[in-house]
């Protein structure tokens, strides 16, 4: 029996497909990701909260899922759109089929979609809201439902994904060299894994934690993490960040980078269809080395918006010349728009964590 489902976009475009097992309706911003592997990391990345993700690679689920390749404890996408799900996975680490995993996590997933046509549509007209339905195929009624969903611009999604309680991710290999306070806006586990590997104890705080509570643990540095939604809507983190700048080393990733930009007096803007993938070339201006980076963002820092020239660009996206990294000229503040922790994606930029370590070393001495 064909299980008919539809993806309806806010401009009225319809894509027909079939759903796996979980039925119902789900709505969000529809984005595409061009990475050919790493679907489990993508599904569990909290930055995708509020978004329906479509994979441009057509065969998804090939290697199943396992217990290790997760970026958070849950699946965060609002819906999952692919060309074809794999029925018989193959990999020595696999513990489950992706289809079962999605069903267990109650994710509405549809397949047999012309995902290339969908991607082209989003490229041409920009990302937009969309709704997947397995029961209502009427455009008018779907349009009404979509109208009630707030758009991504202006939405604070951080509060949905941040940790409820503070926890500690311990350093690897014995005594910690540094104590890092991480402001969790939807942090990916691999940031924690990489920092732990560099000898950091990481204290992970809920996003709304007040600076004095964070300072109370006497951290060597502040990490402001990746996360979903519009950075400008997360005013409380932006405000709190201001009290760390100039006092402690601050390292930002993705949404954290954008919020740092805002805290430093700059502005952010929404990209037409964002960067979501694992093949974007980024030039690190400090050594002119080009790295292939992991990307997942819909907003971007506008370097020209800064009132003074305290902030300089350190990373440049070679595809569209957008800002991929910046640092403060006086204070120990550096941040990256792409994901140095990768996962999924190439490890070319992982060495950039060294800046955080160096800043903390300097701060300690």
């Amino acid at each position, binding site marked *: 029996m064909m299980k008919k489902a539809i993806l309806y976009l806010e401009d009225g475009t319809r894509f027909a497909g079939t759903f796996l097992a979980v039925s119902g309706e789900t709505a969000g911003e529809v984005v595409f990701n*061009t990475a050919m592997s790493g679907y489990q990391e993508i599904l569990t990345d909290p930055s995708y909260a509020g978004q329906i993700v479509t994979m441009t690679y057509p*065969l998804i689920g090939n290697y199943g899922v396992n217990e290790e390749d997760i970026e958070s404890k849950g699946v965060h996408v609002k819906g999952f759109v692919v060309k074809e799900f794999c029925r018989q996975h193959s990999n020595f680490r696999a513990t489950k089929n992706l289809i079962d995993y999605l069903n267990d996590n109650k994710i509405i997933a549809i397949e047999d979609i012309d995902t*290339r046509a969908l991607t*082209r549509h989003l*490229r041409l007209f920009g990302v937009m809201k969309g709704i997947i339905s397995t029961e209502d195929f009427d455009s008018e009624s779907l349009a009404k439902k979509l109208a009630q969903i707030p758009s991504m611009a202006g939405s604070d999604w951080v509060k949905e994904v941040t940790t409820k309680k503070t926890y500690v991710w311990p350093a690897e290999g014995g005594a910690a060299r540094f104590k890092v306070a991480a402001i969790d806006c939807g942090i990916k586990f691999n940031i924690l894994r990489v920092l732990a590997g560099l000898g950091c104890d990481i204290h992970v705080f809920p996003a709304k934690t007040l600076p004095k509570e964070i300072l109370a643990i006497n951290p060597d540095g502040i990490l402001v993490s990746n996360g979903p939604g519009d950075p400008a809507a997360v005013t409380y983190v932006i405000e709190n960040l201001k009290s760390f700048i100039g006092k402690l080393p601050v390292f930002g990733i993705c949404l954290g980078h954008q919020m740092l930009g805002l805290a430093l007096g700059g502005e952010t803007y929404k990209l037409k269809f964002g960067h979501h*993938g694992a093949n974007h070339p980024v030039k690190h201006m400090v050594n002119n080395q080009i790295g*292939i980076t992991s990307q997942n963002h819909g907003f971007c820092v506008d370097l020209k918006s800064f009132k003074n020239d305290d902030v300089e660009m350190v990373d440049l996206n070679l595809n569209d010349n957008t800002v991929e990294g910046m640092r403060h000229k006086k204070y120990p503040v550096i941040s990256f728009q792409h994901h140095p922790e990768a996962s999924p994606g190439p490890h070319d930029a992982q060495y950039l964590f060294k800046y955080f370590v160096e800043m903390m070393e300097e701060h300690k001495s």
Partner: protein
Amino acid sequence: MPKRTDIKKILLLGSGPIVIGQACEFDYSGAQACKALKEEGYEIVLANSNPATIMTDPEFADQTYIEPLTPEFIEYIIEKERPDAILPTLGGQTALNIAIKLWENGVLEKYDVKMLGADYDVIKKAEDREQFKQAVLKIGLDLPQSSFAKNMDEAWKVVKEMGYPLIIRPSFTLGGTGGGIVHNDEEFEKTASLGMESSIINEVLIEESIVGWKEYELEVMRDNKDNVVIVCSIENLDAMGVHTGDSITVAPAQTLTDKEYQAMRDASLALIREIGVETGGSNIQFAVDPKDGRMVVIEMNPRVSRSSALASKATGFPIAKFAAKLAIGYSLDEIQNDITRETPASFEPTIDYCVVKMPRFTFEKFPEAKDILGVQMKSVGETMSIGRTFKEALQKALRGLEIGHSGLDNKLNFKDIPDDKIALRLKEPNASRIFYVKYALQKGMSPEEISKISLIDIWYIAHIKQIVDFENVLIATFKKDKALGKDIIRKAKKYGFSDVQLARLMGMKELAFRRIRKEMGIVATFKQVDTCAAEFEAHTPYYYSTYESEDEAIIEDRKLTEKLKKQGQADRKKIMILGGGPNRIGQGIEFDYCCCHASFAVGEMGYESIMVNSNPETVSTDYDTSDRLYFEPLTFEDVMNILDVEHPDGVIVQYGGQTPLNLARRLADSGAPIIGTSVDSIDLAENRERFSDFIGSVGIQQPANGSAVSAEEAVDIARRIGYPLLVRPSYVLGGRAMRIVYDEESLLSFISEAKEVSAGHPILIDRFIEDAIEVDVDAICDGKETKVAGIMEHIEHAGIHSGDSACCIPPPTISEELIEQIKTYTCKIAEGLKVVGLLNIQFAIKGSAVYVLEVNPRASRTVPFVSKAIGTPLAKVAAQVMMGKNLTDFDLKDQKDLKYMSIKESVLPFSRFSGVDIVLGPEMKSTGEVMGIADDFGVAFAKSQLCANQGLPGKGKIFVSVKDEDKRNSIFFAKKLADLNFKLVSTKGTARVLKTNGVDVQLVDKNGEGKNNVLTLIKKNEINLIINTPSGKRSESDMRAIRAAAILHNVPCITTLQGAWAAVNGIEASAKKKFTVKSLQDYYNSADTISNSK
């Protein structure tokens, strides 16, 4: 960094003739490099011995040398041209090996020639297995356990330590020549000693067997700023143990998690840096243990490879072009991605489709050889398909292979195949294993069981099972409903089922099914290959078909039309060119060469060119050869689908060999505007009876002949015209299954075999004219006038397939009167057939009589050779003629006044097929060709032999043994050889004749174990040339053994009397003169060679 200004002139090395393991991919890479370097203003000197390449077209380089690819000849070229640098990384292993030699013997230093791409130390480090091993271990990567041996004593020591099974890999060979998997002492002794002999440094690597592990390849590029990108990952369907060239491969990697893929990527980056490849592409192979994921490095090629061509076509990322640009100093971020035009080359392509590469084998040509696959490559070509799913791509690849399958369909009824045969065919990797996976599934074997036996990952088996299960649903549904509905047909198309498969299932004709399908609105849609999964706009239209909702070809076409309309211009005129599909013996690079020229011609006429082909190795499937490229199988259905979208003004079918020609009639019937010679004329030439009538009507002789559809009929005809006979199936290329029969018994056995080769078509029977001179003619006709472009005299007599025999322009022994007669005949035939375009005729001359053997109103295999010899691009001119130009519009040269001799020699693959006799016959067996040019015949012939890697000796021992008919004729050349100070050795019969006639000859035994045995002498490398003419089908087995030994020990072996004559001529000429080199441009510019008479 800007490009280098310290170099101005670059010597680029090609890869020579097409052989197994080195095919058109190096024409593709070399042609791209020539274009890229020329664009940058460098002066290019090119050396390649293969005239059938696009790269050796005189426009591609400033100086083009068609000369032997040996260190000596390259030194001559360096001495003459004094290039500043040499680029050896785009011409395969051949070019790399020459560069190593030139560095080692000090030539590069002497003439101050810099090495670009990879320097000596880098090549050594990557290719020398011990150095490579140390490098891998140094950066903390894993390798299979292994040890080197330089002699058998060392080798046996290793065996004692490691135990079986083991893999033997000779150092420095191409395509794994001489390697193999061994399971016991006997196999070990044989393979290890063979391996040592085939290695240029007499060394083999004995390795822990990782047979059954998963095999991967990564294509890596690095620039001089140390930026590294991975262009593509490739996963092999066949597990370790089958040569990558013979494996079905898939891109991108399917069964690696991101964690494992990134570990492989990290390893590749570390490795290319450690080996030190400064600029350009490399290919790194890995194996992964499916049980625990242990990853080991297998090997690395510090150069552009066959896989690079595949990766380029699979992703749209032009590796060779960028490798050339990086070599002269650019960095990746300074090069634009041609396809997106707005993003730099310093990125990694991402693809949104699945690519399947399928090897093409020709075991049918070598019936004595088993179709078992191992670590030594045996395939002669490949096809690549693109689909949105693996299932779709797999079925497209199978029909693109042109081996009589229309997808994953059954040639055998699975019920008839015994279980033990299925198990064996699954276990032993072989050319048709993929179909046995299907048979096994149909018989109810579980995917787990199949995976266990075949060592093919279950991921692939499970997908094949989906195809099989769905086919069962189709059958059941049709049985129940007597029809198939829209949804199920659409799903079938998405699963890659062809119209032929579905029509067969529904018991109807393909065309009828096609009509129903289209009425249902189920039509193929075309998607772009754009390197970026639609993230950016693509500007280079490169398409594949699939069954989806959006058709980008139509969208782009409309956009262009509207744009032109806005600019007040008329819409474009489009010409579609059908390519030749996968290379095979009889249909290879020569036809791709022609297709490329058709595309160039279309461009010169100001029209839009549309290329259709499925061969990833070729220049024709380069995205910038034509205005549009459709990477599709060459079947009626797939071509019609493109026609439905493109509506071209003309379709060229006469350039891609037999493949498009076989489609011509049906395409024309379905309304395709075929240009050039009409389909009816093609049929007239192919249809025996019509052709005989025609030839008779223009007053030309033909050997007595007939055609038969039954054995009885054949016997009748044979009795009427008399033996010997040349018999063959119709509508095949390369003399497939063609044979000379001397009696009724062999005629009948031929007929039973021929049925399978050309089902439904009649068998052609000709009186075989013995000892006749064969002549090949290529001509162009515009329907009114004919230009005879080249008359080639074959060295071997008629009866040896024209593709296997050597030939010479201008004809060295044919009288002017006969040449005039041949010209007259050619014009009569061309004009009588109303040929528009190219025409090839084979004539036989016996005494003063000229017979027509065959007429092919299409591009022939010799078109590139003739074009190079006379300095006129025949295929390009003929394509313009097809588009409406007249011959009088061109200034065509004539071969009559050529002051130099051009000889084409063929290159044979016998060393790959053990057990196969090397004797030439009417069935074509060669894979490639080379060209020798010089002022006189002898030198040109000697060069052609050097080009073919069978250089004639200057001194030493020659073994002569000829059949009785040749004995008298052997006296004179034997004397000549003796005069040239060669020592002759012969077996009894020949020795007696020579001695009686005063030739000093040493008598040797042809069999036995003695010291005086010819086999022993060959093994001890004491024989420098073998002249052995076998006596027909009844050739003695000991002579076979001698010829086999010749192949094994790479002793040139001549099997025809005419070949012996030419060889003696060559030996004498090279003894008298020093070899010199001369570029094509210099040959053409000597004013006296140009003339314009018809």
